[in-house]
């Protein structure tokens, strides 16, 4: 009995020890690596670094410790020894030194290869070319350094959705400074970029539709080498995604005219941060119309604009009419899947025509519109034909049902006669 009780006690103690080990594992791990967290987890404010926070840091996960950046002797629990200059302790890293410190590893291809061979090692070089880097070199410590964007002591890889530099979070991270009117005032930079971006089609794609390939601040401005692309190079930036539009625009009359006047290409019509989903109304004369900002009413270009707008509107209406006609036929049980399939081609022609607008040549837009209009007209006819066929079927059914009714009456009378 006693032995049984001893065994139970032993088992209970073992279970407690195991549970305690699991619960205390993060702090035990940190203590095994360095002693800095002992004191700093008890500090308040910016000096506080808890083992939980540091354990989230990619550097900690890869085996780096506080000493790797701050120097000192992490094995000593004596503060004087641990933070001794003799032991290489650097204390709080000066903002001006941050890029250089990060770059000491991140610009070393041989070293970085041992952790992540696919990671780029030109961040520091790029940073030096950025407006942030240039201003920092000029002694302006308010500009962004590595830790302002990547955070500090809990730096996560960019692919981590919790990272401030994850594509979904980038705009918000940039806006921490660029939407701060007081901070931006000395630089004369507007602070409405984030507000404008938030209502743009790009933000919608990124945040609402979750498309991580959609553009955010760094897509156009660069990340480590962040700088506005320059007025005459805007189309090169947009061309990274909108290749066809850029090619057409590059060969158009507008390209030359905009260059001569020093206008920023695509931005002239589409704006920069508040880029809305373009609609045919952009070609109109209403509040969303852009052409008449430069062109005079009645001139050659205005007539071309009106013609293109009419073409596009008509094609759009034709496709919708065909769609409605096919839907009606489908709801009547008619088989119009082939016409339904070609409806996509008509829609593609409309999309192509909207892209071809960037050539600003009515003949080319016309060709696309005509191709779509031909398909839409055929599909409209297919829908109508299906409805005519449906009516024929119903008339045929009516005749058959009448014949059947006559047969039934005839049979009934015959049976009655037979049995009378």
């Amino acid at each position, binding site marked *: 009995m006693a032995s049984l009780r001893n065994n139970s006690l032993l088992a209970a103690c073992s279970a407690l020890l195991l549970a305690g080990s699991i619960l205390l594992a993060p702090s035990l791990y940190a203590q095994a690596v360095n002693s800095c967290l002992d004191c700093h987890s008890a500090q308040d404010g910016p000096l506080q670094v808890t083992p939980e926070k540091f354990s989230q840091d990619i550097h900690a996960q890869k085996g780096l410790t506080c000493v790797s950046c701050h120097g000192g002797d992490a094995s000593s629990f004596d503060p004087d020894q641990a933070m001794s200059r003799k032991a290489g302790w650097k204390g709080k890293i000066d903002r001006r030194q941050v890029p250089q410190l990060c770059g000491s590893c991140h610009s070393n291809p041989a070293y970085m290869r041992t952790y992540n061979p696919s990671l780029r090692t030109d961040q520091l070089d790029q940073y030096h070319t950025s407006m942030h880097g240039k201003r920092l070199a000029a002694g302006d410590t308010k500009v962004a350094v590595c830790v302002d964007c990547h955070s500090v002591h809990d730096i996560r890889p960019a692919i981590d959705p919790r990272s401030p530099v994850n594509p979904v979070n980038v705009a918000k991270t940039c806006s921490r400074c660029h939407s701060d009117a007081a901070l931006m005032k000395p630089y004369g930079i507007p602070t409405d970029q984030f507000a404008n971006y938030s209502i743009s089609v790009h933000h919608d794609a990124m945040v609402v539709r979750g498309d991580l390939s959609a553009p955010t601040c760094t897509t156009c401005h660069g990340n480590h080498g962040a700088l506005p692309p320059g007025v005459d190079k805007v189309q090169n930036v947009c061309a990274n995604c909108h290749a066809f539009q850029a090619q057409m625009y590059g060969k158009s009359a507008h390209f030359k005219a905009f260059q001569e006047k020093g206008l920023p290409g695509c931005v002239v019509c589409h704006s920069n941060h508040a880029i809305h989903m373009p609609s045919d109304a952009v070609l109109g004369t209403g509040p969303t119309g852009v052409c008449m900002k430069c062109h005079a009413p009645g001139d050659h270009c205005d007539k071309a604009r009106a013609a293109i707008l009419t073409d596009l509107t008509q094609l759009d209406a034709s496709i919708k009419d065909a769609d409605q006609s096919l839907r009606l036929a489908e709801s009547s049980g008619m*088989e119009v*899947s082939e016409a339904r399939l070609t409806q996509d081609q008509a829609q593609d022609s409309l999309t192509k025509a909207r892209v071809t607008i960037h050539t600003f040549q009515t003949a080319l837009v016309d060709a696309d519109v005509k191709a779509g209009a031909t398909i839409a007209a055929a599909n409209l006819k297919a829908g109508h034909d299906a409805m005519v066929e449906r009516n024929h079927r119903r008339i045929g*059914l009516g005749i*058959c049902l009448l014949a*059947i009714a006559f047969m*039934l009456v005839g*049979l009934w009378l015959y*049976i009655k006669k037979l*049995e009378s």
Partner: protein
Amino acid sequence: MIAALYRWLDDRLHLDDLIAPFKHKTVPRHRLSYWYFFGGITLFLFMIQVLTGILLLLYYRPGANEAFESVQYIMTRVQFGWLIRSIHSWSANLMIFTAFVHMFSVLFLKAYRKPRELTWVTGVILLLLVMGFGFSGYLLPWDTLAFFATKVGTEIAGQIPIIGKPIMIFLRGGDEVTGATLTRFFGFHVAVLPGIVVVLIAIHLFLVQRLGMSVPPKVEAEWTANPSARREMKFFPNFALREMMAWYVAMGVLGALAAIFPWNLGVKADPFISAPAGIKPEWYFLFMFQTLKMIPSKVWIIDGEVLGVLGCSLAGLLWLLLPFLENEKSSRSKTWVTGISIFALVYVIGMTVYGFLAQ
């Protein structure tokens, strides 16, 4: 002319001897006689199936790359192809419906009792085979719904302990539903099942002719008490003409359904997409499907699906042997069978409706 031809044939084949029993055959005439027509309507719809099926065969091409396109061709290009296919599909559904009605009418009119036990057994097997027709034919257009319904259906068959997996692989022609499954189902649909069904229909009809029409016990009791109330009509032409009227009505309903609601052709099956949300089998499998869905994933130590499949199989076997479970002399066993019949009807209708409404 026709009479001369008949005489010529009769001289050689003695047709009069063959027709004689039909001339003397009579059919009981009472207030429940109209239930007799459902067997004939089911037979009529089966004949429509054979005829339209043969016409569809002229254009249908079995194969994962061609089946959908060939059905699309039938629906859009072939003259009256849409009508033939719609009639084939609607007739299949109506045939299963009338077969169910016929079965339950036989059950409630007590027509399964001695000496008609074998008629019942062949009838139940025929119903199962007709459902097999439905299951195999459903895949043939190779559309998305059919593809996934077959996937789910064959998976359920695979749940049977020990023999389930080999059966599933046999049905699919491999581990997955592929073009091989389509070819196989086509073979079942146009060769294997029709062959078996035709033989069974012949036996079923022979038994019906041999044993005559059953009179419901209540009507029989009334007639025994009052023999002058007994009414009969000649099978030919009186009953046959009435049956013809029923067939005309069935033809009218079928034509109206096919013309007003042509059978839909969905989207071509794509094995690489995920199953459409809330996919359900055809209505005649819905009560079984819903039953399987409602069984918990684990019942004691038995897997829920296995339990469901075994339960359904056992219920089917008991249903088949129902006439043998009823003791002729025990009124208690008769009450039990009546109770089970009512429960089965309510259960099948209730679960089918629930299956339709359930998400």
